[in-house]
């Protein structure tokens, strides 16, 4: 009898684990974030930028309609452009991630502009970002603040910041 009960509890544990893993996969909705970091801002400067790679592991195109964070007054998706020698930032309404594809937010290009930090953020702090999708789903992730080094001068066009940071330290 006790053996039977043990089996039952074991089975239920296994089922629960499967269920939990299913739930976590469901909440992430096939979305994953990698290489995420926020550039530390100089003292008293409350506008920061977040960079990351967001992947869509589903068979359907996913569209980011907004990114929010409770730690900031306002959050916007921006694209830095350089047209005729003028640096501009354009607010982007929707960012589409193709099916089984990814979108890279990187320095000098697409970034999440974090405006008005409610509490000053320094290296090592983390920011909770919530990605809202057009289909009503959302995806939350914590991104840590890092002191950034400039891009490697020999590495034109590369956006792999982590590699570069390792070079410098």
């Amino acid at each position, binding site marked *: 009898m006790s053996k039977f009960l043990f089996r039952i509890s074991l089975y239920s544990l296994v089922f629960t684990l499967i269920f939990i893993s299913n739930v976590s996969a469901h909440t992430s909705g096939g979305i994953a974030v990698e290489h995420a970091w926020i550039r530390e801002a100089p*003292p008293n*400067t409350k*506008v920061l*930028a977040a960079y990351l790679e967001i992947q869509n592991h589903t068979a359907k195109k996913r569209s980011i309609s907004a990114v929010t964070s409770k730690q900031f007054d*306002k959050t916007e998706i921006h694209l830095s452009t350089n047209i005729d*020698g003028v640096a501009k930032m354009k607010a982007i309404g929707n960012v589409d991630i193709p099916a089984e594809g990814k979108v890279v937010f990187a320095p000098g290009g697409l970034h999440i502009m974090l*405006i008005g930090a409610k509490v000053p953020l320094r290296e090592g702090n983390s920011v909770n970002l919530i990605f809202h999708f057009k289909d009503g789903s959302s995806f939350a992730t914590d991104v840590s603040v890092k002191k950034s080094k400039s891009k490697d001068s*020999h590495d034109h066009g590369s956006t792999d910041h982590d590699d570069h940071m390792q070079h410098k330290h």
Partner: protein
Amino acid sequence: MTMDYPFQRLRFASNLGKILDTRVIFLLFYLCLTACDRNPPESAQFAIPKDLKYVLNENPTKISTFQLTDQNGNNFTEKQLEGKWTFMFFGYSHCPDVCPITLMEMDDLSKLFAKSTSDKTEQNIQYLFVTVDPKRDTVAHLKNYIPYFNKTFTALTGPMENIDKLATAADIFHKIEYITEKIYIVEHGSALVLINPSGYYYARFDAPHYASDIHTTFEKIKRYYNGNPS
């Protein structure tokens, strides 16, 4: 008469000497002027080397008078542009992407100069950050901001019309764009402007900037400026 002749010849010689002297003085004066000016008349100028074609300003223009304030509250005018090379970038502290990237690249550049030069070249270069957002970038704010990138950099602010004067001289565009009623960003020329030691807007490096490229190109620019284009 016979006695007069050598005397007259002497007098003639002395006159010739005077004429020559005046000419020599004029010539020396002219040479000195061209040597000091460093922007010799067109005939004396070397053809712009191919690789500097899109970097050098075809018609270097003197940065006209302006008055701004640095992060320590000191006056900064066109006079501080003379006698050294100046790398100048226009931006604003609330810019989270392009401005920190450029300032960090300028910091890398300064380190490259410090490492590579055996002479005192690196002491002859200054780095300026000129705000296009004086409303938020006050002297006090810039005092906190600029040392984060490099303690030797100079940040300038002042009344918008004064900033405009310098921006126009350096051919830098800027314009405020409102995101909401209160929040705004500033569009601004992203080039790194190079001013020569005579205070002329001499070259520009368009974005994206790579410190090592600028470092190499600058050496060529300096050789060209010093009259040796090879």
